């Protein structure tokens, strides 16, 4: 049987063209457009749309608030990411064993990840409330005296509160992915190692870790990127406050763009973030051996 061949061999590309055009329009156009905007002088207070070339980018380097917001972002990432990873791993190991009600427990544990971050943040805002929040209430019971911790206001308490919420919400994600990866480790290999006399750490180091590493690396990458762009939870809890104490890069960009209406400057910030993340991702993908 011979298939009917259209006389024009390139006809298939014409068929694909509308879809590709649409994809480019939706995907690539905004990116390029915002890049162009970042070289202009647009803000919502003025009608000036002339080109400023690298003016906005030069401004970035002089902007102390920007670099502080980057530092805040890195601080949250540097603490939350390893904690989420280790906690998730520990939980995954716990649930690897057969136990009654296992499925139900897993479903319950995964709930935080399903909730929208802004809702979770708002809920925690209420829980942390210094007057009516149950958290202060419980701490008071344990302490035996009235404790009035200003979780979302006091500078040395906001970071613990934010990082706690972040960990609460996203550890289940790590847990679920690592549980799936660990379940796939060949059981007879770990049994052989047990008989060989190896203890937990040796088995983890030489058998489990190499087996789950590709999955774990991707989970770290995904969570790392998410944490770098962290916005909702902080917005709901503190809106970047007190002052600019918990302002992350995303919150700063949002403030510049939609409160100060510095459109071009915000575009420049966005491209700074794109640049940083591209560098980190490329490095991480190479370093983790994922490109192979």
């Amino acid at each position: 049987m011979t298939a009917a061949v259209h006389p024009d061999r390139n006809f298939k590309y014409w068929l694909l063209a509308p879809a590709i055009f649409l994809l480019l329009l939706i995907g690539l156009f905004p990116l390029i457009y915002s890049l162009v905007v970042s070289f202009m002088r647009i803000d919502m207070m003025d009608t000036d749309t002339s080109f400023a070339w690298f003016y906005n980018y030069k401004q970035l380097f002089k902007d102390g608030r920007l670099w502080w917001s980057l530092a805040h972002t890195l601080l949250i990432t540097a603490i939350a990411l390893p904690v989420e990873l280790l906690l998730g791993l520990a939980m995954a190991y716990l649930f690897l064993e057969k136990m009654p009600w296992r499925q139900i427990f897993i479903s319950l544990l995964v709930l935080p990840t399903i909730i929208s971050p802004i809702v979770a943040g708002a809920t925690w805002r209420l829980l942390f409330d210094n007057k009516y929040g149950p958290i202060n209430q419980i701490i008071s019971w344990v302490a035996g005296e009235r404790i009035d911790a200003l979780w979302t206001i006091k500078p040395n308490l906001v970071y613990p509160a934010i990082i706690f919420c972040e960990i609460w919400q996203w550890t289940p994600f790590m847990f679920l992915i690592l549980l799936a990866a660990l379940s796939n480790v060949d059981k007879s290999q770990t049994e052989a190692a047990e008989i060989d006399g190896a203890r937990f750490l040796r088995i983890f180091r030489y058998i489990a870790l190499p087996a789950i590493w590709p999955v774990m690396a991707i989970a770290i990458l995904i969570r790392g990127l998410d944490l770098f762009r962290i916005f909702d939870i902080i917005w709901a809890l503190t809106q970047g406050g007190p002052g600019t104490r918990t302002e992350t890069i995303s919150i700063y960009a949002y403030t510049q763009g939609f409160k100060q209406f510095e459109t071009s400057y915000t575009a420049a910030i966005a491209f700074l973030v794109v640049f940083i993340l591209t560098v980190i991702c490329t490095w991480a993908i190479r370093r983790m051996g994922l490109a192979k």
Partner: protein
Amino acid sequence: MSDLKITDLHKHYGNFHAVKGVSLDVQAGEFTVLVGPSGCGKSTLLRCIAGLEETSSGRIEIGGKDVTHARPRDRDIAMVFQNYALYPYLNVKDNIAFGLRARKFAETEIEKRVKRASDMLGIGHLLTRFPRELSGGQRQRVAIGRAIVRDAILYLFDEPLSNLDAQLRDDMRVEIKRLHQELGRTMIYVTHDQIEAMTLADRIVLLRDGVVEQQGSPLDLFERPQTRFVAGFLGSPKMNFLKGTLTRTGVSLADGRELVLPGRESLRSGQAVLLGVRPQHIALAGKTVAKGHERIPVTIELVQPTGSRVQVTLPLGGTSVIAELGAHEVSRPGEKTFIDLDMTRAIVIDAVTEKVL
């Protein structure tokens, strides 16, 4: 001294009773084969010995020490798994050395032992390779090397040859037998293959539905089976079973043919029995009928040559039986001939209890 002593071991998986009160006493240096059809509990029993499964009740002693509730690493055992269970991210040398490193042996000692084990198994040239770069037979050698490199009291083999092709399986069987002779260690070997059991074992423990059906030396089980199950399980081709009734002089088959049973006068007449005859004990009729043999005219139904021998299917006593004859003794189906049945080696089984009388 006994290296392994199991007393009344039970294992339940929920409602499923996998091992039902097995007791076993394995002497030092003995090669014991646990054999039985799939689902008989032999692998579960082995995993209980290894400590990979918690026993429901009973007692396990290894080297005179109660290890019933000990962790696998504290039991002084080494094990070879069915799927090899090599560590995929370590090369052959590190695979073999893994247990020694875990037990904090000195690097020079590890070096020495790995070399000895790999020379013994002929895998010295593979030490820097990774498991994925090895063939099935090579992987199995590495798995065995990983076990014998240690000084364990007990060496456990869980169907180690069942993932190999037939040719390789025969070679490795010889290898394992040779290893046992050289090392003189106590080995417990699980298989469903009765040929492996017969050829390797000092002692066969035949399991059925979680119970020891019979144990003893291979020839003991082959020649003096205590039940129909044992008689049918060991030997290839399988033993033939003919329905019949005991008479004063012998047995009367379903088709009315009477066969004389020498030395069975003590048996009760009228009892329903099965007559067990091995294919090897049926021969083409010679010039004279030997003592204790029965000569029967038959028509050949089916001929299966195996090269050195030929397996012949023929009707007898109302059923089809298989006889193993010399090559070229019969040529085609439909051939009419005479066979001699060696009644001195036939066994009589109670048709109800299935026990050998």
